[in-house]
């Protein structure tokens, strides 16, 4: 008989929070067009790309620590794309991020279904 998972409650909370994070990522990406990728030197204002990268970084780290490798890899891929956009472009084109976001949404749906 398998032992109960001592992390079960935390996993449930993490999956619920991951859904919120992905919705936040969707909002940031949808609102991103026409925003500059970087603001002037010295400003503390966070660009859309930086905000996406940070949120994706948090999701990647937590997903991996909970053992959800595929979700973590998708989030890390989104982080990499957002950081590249932040570094290389004068304007932020969110279009290449959309397919990765869709993968993330599918991963969350899989996790929710597996626990339903």
């Amino acid at each position, binding site marked *: 008989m398998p032992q109960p998972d001592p992390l079960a409650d*935390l996993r449930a909370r993490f999956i619920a929070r991951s859904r919120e994070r992905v919705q936040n990522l969707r909002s940031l990406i949808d609102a991103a067009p026409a925003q500059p990728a970087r603001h002037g030197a010295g400003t503390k204002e966070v660009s859309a790309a930086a905000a996406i990268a940070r949120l994706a970084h948090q999701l990647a780290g937590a997903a991996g620590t909970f053992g959800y490798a595929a979700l973590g890899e998708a989030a890390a891929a989104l982080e990499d794309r957002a950081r590249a956009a932040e570094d290389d472009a004068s304007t932020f084109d969110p279009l290449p991020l959309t397919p990765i976001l869709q993968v993330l949404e599918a991963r969350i749906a899989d996790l929710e279904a597996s626990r339903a």
Partner: protein
Amino acid sequence: MIDQADDQPASGVAPSPTSIPLRAAGTLRRVVVAEDDPDISALVALALGRLSGLEVTICANGRAVLEVVPHHLPDLFLLDVMMPEMDGVETLARLRLEPSTAMIPVIFMTARVRPRDLEFYFAKGATGVIAKPFDPMTLARRLCQLHAENRHAPA
């Protein structure tokens, strides 16, 4: 790769009898943790506290750590590197300046573990580094090992 279909927890995260006996490995009893992600901090609190019997204090960033330590000196600090307000590297520098915390081991946990990153952390005075993502079920044992190694290291 992002096309993996089955995303069930890795086997290393499954329940395992790794939590006992920890205190026999050294004198590690109290740990102060700084982690801004609520999911990871909850996981660390569970893994080190309820599952391993350590006394754990969770802080949301380095500034909170500095507010805690005058009243609560731990045996070890476990610090995330990237945190808002005060990151792990600055927190370590502040701890090293304070006589009461200067000699307490500091372990970083971070996803940035390229050789040049590790060189940087150790040059700043880190005792050890735990790469993210980590296995929460073996975290306490690894901290005990790092703590014991630090105790036996030449001054």
